[in-house]
């Protein structure tokens, strides 16, 4: 960030350096004061005594609460990302079809899927699955979480695919057509392989969204990390430590993915001059329905 951000200010002179130092002290003091105050508040309620934290050193506790939670979160996230990738590819390509009706159909589905909150989808699917006994009772919550996440993330990935294909230089299509390739070959052999590489950073970022959204399964009683840490907090009377640990685990996973996405993007950008890349922090990953952001 340094280079772009420093657009806003010059290298500080001696006076400015003193001023910055004072501001720094003020900021540090404010943050520390807030943190310590909050810490003391929780300590007052006995949330930070040693025996509230001791459970985290026992493997039995991890096996009962946290590991199943992590497993639930990861299972749902991985399944839904893989399925969403397939759904997204299909709909992304359908949206670029030459047939107006096909384009319209896929476009409408994608836009509608993006306008409905994942939680609403999840609750609804769970009710449907229970009513019609679609899945085994033990798998029902997982199925609802995965299906809802697949529908939502699939619609976003469809947009990422479209952005990836659009980001390719026009010459690629022209060359393939000149070689006499059919539409299907053009897509399969020329455009898609390049587009997948181009959209890799955005895809990894989308995994962060999927991973976070598994926590919505909380409401339909799916055992994911937030729910399992909530249960742990209730059982061992250490709500705050349990939720904090869940937060740290989630942040660790997601930051790792974010770093990976940025690294990928840098590598792809440096690899070929003017090569196509869909940015990792692309707004597409949280894109609004109705706004065509792929044009930027």
């Amino acid at each position, binding site marked *: 960030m340094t280079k772009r*951000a420093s657009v806003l200010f010059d290298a500080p002179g001696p006076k400015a350096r003193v001023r910055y130092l004072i501001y720094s002290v003020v900021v540090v003091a404010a943050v520390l004061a807030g943190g310590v105050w909050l810490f003391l508040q929780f300590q007052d309620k006995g949330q930070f005594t040693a025996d509230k934290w001791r459970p985290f050193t026992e493997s039995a506790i991890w096996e009962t609460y946290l590991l199943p939670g992590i497993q639930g979160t990861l299972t749902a996230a991985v399944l839904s990302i893989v399925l969403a990738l397939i759904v997204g590819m299909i709909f992304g390509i359908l949206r670029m079809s030459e047939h107006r009706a096909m384009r319209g159909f896929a476009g409408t589905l994608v836009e509608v899927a993006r306008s409905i*909150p994942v939680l609403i989808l999840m609750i609804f699917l769970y009710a449907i699955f229970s009513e019609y006994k679609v899945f085994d009772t033990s798998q029902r919550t997982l199925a609802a979480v995965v299906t809802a996440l697949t529908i939502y993330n699939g619609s976003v990935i469809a947009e990422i695919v479209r952005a990836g294909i659009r980001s390719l230089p026009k010459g690629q299509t022209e060359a393939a057509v000149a070689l006499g390739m059919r539409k299907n070959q053009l897509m399969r052999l020329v455009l898609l392989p390049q587009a997948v590489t181009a959209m890799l950073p955005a895809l990894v970022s989308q995994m962060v969204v999927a991973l976070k959204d598994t926590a919505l399964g909380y*409401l339909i009683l799916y055992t994911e990390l937030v729910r399992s840490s909530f249960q742990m907090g209730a059982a061992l009377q250490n*709500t705050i430590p349990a939720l904090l640990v869940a937060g740290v685990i989630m942040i660790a996973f997601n930051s790792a993915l974010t770093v990976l996405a940025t690294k990928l993007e840098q590598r792809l950008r440096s690899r070929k001059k003017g090569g196509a890349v869909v940015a990792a922090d692309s707004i597409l990953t949280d894109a*609004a329905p109705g706004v065509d952001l792929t044009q930027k």
Partner: protein
Amino acid sequence: MFDLISRYDTKILEAFWVTIKLTAFSAVGALILGTIVAAMRVSPIPIARAVGTAYVTVFRNTPLTLIIVFCSLGLYSTLGWTLGSDQLTDTNYRWAIIGLSIYTAAFVCESLRSGINTVALGQSEAGRSLGLTFSQNLRFIVLPQAFRSVIAPLGSVLIALTKNSTVAAVIGVSEAALLMSEMLENEAALLAIGAIFALGFVVLTLPMGLLFGWLAKRFEVAR
């Protein structure tokens, strides 16, 4: 479907009204907080930049469910911060607004920062050569242009917020998602209920997307 709507009409409208209110209040909160964090992230003070970065990393990578559960269980149940109301429903409603604001502010900050990056270098150089300080430069020259170039992304953030406001259901705020799960339990017409709420959100979010798309074109900065 229609008899369902007529039987529940006031309830449905009330639930969506709560959703809209949650969205509106959290949007204001997130915009203010997000602008402050963005200003910190581009400020000349390294510590402030680090604090801003930490804020974004923490809150963008935490599930919203966790933040809202933490607000309700940690800050309300454990610490007893009732936010000046003596009713449980009001308290949870206010905590939901705070949780949503804190979470969304991280996204507002990131959008704004990318907007600041689109402002041409010469603009702030010109500002500086006129003798403007960092904060004057930010307020009069950079932020107005940045805001105009991030109208569409901010619209996306607002729409995501509208959808995310359903998460308030996990702490029992009586908005659309909670009413829906209640209706799904009590009524037989599952598909009709699903259709009503899906339609409700399509009606809420699609026009917003179109509006922001139009606004973005209307206020585009010519470069």
